[in-house]
C-alpha cells in the first residue's frame, strides 16, 4: 500500500499561495487518510495506484488550442496547461457583466472577493482529494458574473494535461450574481499524457434568482486519471444544471454535490458515460435539500462494454425543513458485454414528511427486437446498434443546450460504438 507521506512529499515543495493552503496541508498530513475500498463511498473505485506513482510537473508550451477545442463551440476561453495559466491562449476580452481571470491575476478588491469565497463551499476536512487539491493547487479560473448579467456566449475553462505522469490539482471558482444567466464549459483535454492524474475541484455559487449551467466535458485521454469534485451552492429561486460527459479516461471519479440553501430552487444533473477496455468511470452525486419548495432532477445514462466498469451512486438528502421537495433520480445502463460491470446505487434519505421523491436504476442490453427490426430495413448490426445507443443517450443529450456540445457528445457516442468492433 502506498505511503501517504511519500506521496505528499512530491507536492510539499510547492509554495502555499493561498491562506487556506496552510491549514489544508496540516489536515492532510495529520490524520487524514486517502479512501480505500473499505470506505462505503469508494467501495468500487481503487485509487491506490494513483497514490503510488511519481509525478512530474512539466512546463509545456502549446502553440494553439485549435486541436483541443470542441468543433464549432463559440466560447470565451480561459486556458491552463498542467495547471499553469496561459494568458496568450486565453480570450478574456470584454464581456458585459463578466470578469474571468486566473486566480493568480486577481488583485485588490477582486482578490479579496476571491479569498472570501475560495474554500468556502467544498468540504475538504473529510475528503482527502479535496484536501489534496486545496493544499497544493497553484492556479485556476476565477469567474464572476455580475448581478443581472445575461451572458450570451458560453465561458469555457480549458484545462490541458500535457506530457507523461503530470499531476495537476486544478481548481476553479465561479460566482454567479443574483438574477444573472450564464453557461460554463469545463473542458479537460490531454496530450501525450500517459499516467497523468488530474485532481480537480470546482466551486460554484449561484445567487438568488440566477440560472447557471455547467458542462463538464472530460476527455483527457485513454491513459489518464481524473478525480473531480464539483460543489454547487444555490440561493433562493435559482436554477442550476450540471451535465457531465465523460468521453475518455482510464479512471474517472466525479463527485457532484449540490447544496440547496434557498427556497424555490431547481437543480438538474445529467450525465453520459460509455466505457470500454478496462475503463472505470464513477459518478457520485449528492443533493442536499436544506430548504422547502425545491426540485431536483437527475438522469445518468451509461453504456459499458469489454471489461470496463461503471459506478453510479446518487444520494438525495431531504432535511426536515425541506418540505415540498420534489426529487427525481434515475440511472440507466446498458451492458454490451458479459465482462462489463455496473455498480449502481440510488439513495434517498428523507426527514421531511411532505415530499415527492423517486429513484430508480435499470441495467439491460440493447433491445434485440429493435435490432432485428432495424436490420430488416437494411441497417447493419453496427448501424442499428449506433442508432439505439444514440436513442438511449438521447434523453440526456436533449438537455445539452449548447448545440456544439450536443453534436460533440453524439459523435463521441457514435465513435465509441464504431471502435468496438475494430
Amino acid at each position, binding site marked *: 500500500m502506498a505511503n501517504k507521506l511519500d506521496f505528499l512529499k512530491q507536492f510539499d515543495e510547492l509554495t502555499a499561495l493561498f491562506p487556506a493552503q496552510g491549514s489544508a496541508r496540516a489536515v492532510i498530513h495529520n490524520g487524514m487518510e486517502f479512501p480505500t475500498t473499505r470506505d462505503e463511498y469508494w467501495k468500487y473505485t481503487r485509487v491506490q495506484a494513483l497514490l503510488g506513482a511519481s509525478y512530474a510537473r512539466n512546463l509545456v508550451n502549446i502553440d494553439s488550442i485549435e486541436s483541443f477545442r470542441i468543433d464549432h463551440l463559440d466560447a470565451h476561453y480561459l486556458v491552463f496547461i498542467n495547471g499553469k495559466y496561459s494568458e496568450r491562449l486565453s480570450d478574456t476580452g470584454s464581456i458585459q457583466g463578466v470578469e474571468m481571470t486566473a486566480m493568480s491575476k486577481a488583485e485588490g478588491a477582486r482578490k479579496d472577493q476571491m479569498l472570501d469565497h475560495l474554500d468556502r463551499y467544498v468540504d475538504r476536512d473529510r475528503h482527502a482529494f479535496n484536501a489534496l487539491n486545496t493544499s497544493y493547487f497553484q492556479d485556476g479560473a476565477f469567474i464572476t458574473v455580475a448581478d443581472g448579467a445575461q451572458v450570451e456566449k458560453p465561458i469555457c475553462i480549458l484545462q490541458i494535461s500535457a506530457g507523461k505522469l503530470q499531476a495537476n490539482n486544478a481548481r476553479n471558482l465561479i460566482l454567479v450574481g443574483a438574477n444573472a444567466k450564464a453557461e460554463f464549459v469545463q473542458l479537460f483535454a490531454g496530450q501525450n499524457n500517459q499516467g497523468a492524474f488530474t485532481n480537480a475541484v470546482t466551486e460554484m455559487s449561484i445567487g438568488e434568482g440566477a440560472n447557471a449551467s455547467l458542462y463538464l466535458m472530460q476527455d483527457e485521454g485513454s491513459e489518464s486519471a481524473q478525480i473531480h469534485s464539483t460543489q454547487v451552492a444555490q440561493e433562493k429561486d435559482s436554477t442550476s444544471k450540471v451535465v457531465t460527459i465523460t468521453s475518455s479516461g482510464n479512471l474517472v471519479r466525479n463527485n457532484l454535490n449540490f447544496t440547496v440553501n434557498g427556497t424555490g430552487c431547481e437543480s438538474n444533473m445529467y450525465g453520459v458515460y460509455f466505457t470500454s477496455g478496462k475503463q472505470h468511470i464513477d459518478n457520485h452525486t449528492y443533493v442536499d435539500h436544506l430548504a422547502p419548495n425545491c426540485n431536483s432532477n437527475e438522469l445518468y445514462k451509461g453504456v459499458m462494454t469489454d471489461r470496463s466498469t461503471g459506478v453510479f451512486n446518487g444520494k438525495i438528502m431531504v432535511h426536515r425543513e425541506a418540505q415540498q421537495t420534489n426529487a427525481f433520480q434515475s440511472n440507466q445502463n446498458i451492458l454490451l458485454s458479459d465482462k462489463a460491470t455496473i455498480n449502481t446505487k440510488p439513495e434517498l434519505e428523507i426527514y421531511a414528511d411532505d415530499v415527492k421523491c423517486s429513484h430508480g436504476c435499470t441495467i439491460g442490453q440493447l433491445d434485440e427486437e429493435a435490432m432485428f427490426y432495424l436490420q430488416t430495413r*437494411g441497417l447493419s448490426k453496427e448501424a442499428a446498434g449506433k442508432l439505439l445507443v444514440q*436513442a438511449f443517450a438521447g434523453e440526456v443529450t436533449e438537455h445539452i443546450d449548447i448545440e456544439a456540445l450536443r453534436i460533440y457528445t453524439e459523435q463521441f457516442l457514435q465513435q465509441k460504438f464504431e471502435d468496438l468492433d475494430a
Partner: protein
Amino acid sequence: MSDFLDVKNLHASIEGNQILKGINLEVNAGEVHAIMGPNGSGKSTLSSVLAGREEYEVEADHVKFLGKDLLEMAPEERSREGLFLAFQYPVEIPGVSNINFLKAAINAKRAHQGLEDISAKEFMQLVKEKQALVELKQSLANRSVNEGFSGGEKKRNEIFQMAMLQPRLGILDETDSGLDIDALKIVANGVNKLKSKDNAFILITHYQRLLNYIVPDFVHVLYNGRIVKSGDKTLALELEEKGYDWIINEVEAV
C-alpha cells in the same frame, strides 16, 4: 423452378421444436401469394425465417431469392437485396426518428447497389409521395419509430416503410390483424399501388377479409409446418365458408 423466389424443403426449429417441416414455395415476379392457416401452423415462423431472424435453426435444400442463397445472408443483406418484412407486431423504438432511420435504410440499400446517398430534396419528395399513399400523417413520419402509434398507425407505418424501400418481395405478416375496415382498405390500397410486374408479395393472413382487397394469384394453406393445399383465390373463399377443419381432416386421413 422460379428465379425469383424458390423455397425447397425448408425446415425450421426453435429450442428443439420443429415448426416448419418442409416448405416448398415458388413465387414469380408479378405474383401475389396468400399463405393462410390456423393458429400455430407456422405462418409467422415462415416470414421470420425468410427475413433472417436468428433464433431459428434452419435447414433447407435451398432457398433462392433472385438467384442468390437467401439463408446465407444476414437480415440486412436480405433487405438490401430487395426483401421486406412488414411485422405483425412492429417494434416501438423510442428516440429513433422514423425519418432518420428510413434515410439510413435507403442509403444502406443504395450503397449496396453502388449508388450515392439520396439527396435531401429527393428524399423529402419520396417521403411526401409515400406518406400520401398510405395516408400517414406527417407528424407520425417525424416521430420516433412506432412510439405511441395506434395499432392501425403501426401497420400503416410498415406499408409506408415498404413503399419507401421499394422491395422486390414484400412479406406482410398478418398486417390485417387488428385493423378496422378503413385502415384495412388503406393498407390494401397501398399494396395494390406498389404492385408491379417486377415485384411480388406474400400475404400471411388468418382471414379471407384482406383478400377481398388484395386479390391473390395463389392461396396456400399452411398446416403443421407444411403447405398442405394450394389453389387460386377461390380456395380462400372456401376456407372462409368452411373453416380449416375439412383440410385438416383431409391431411390427417392420408
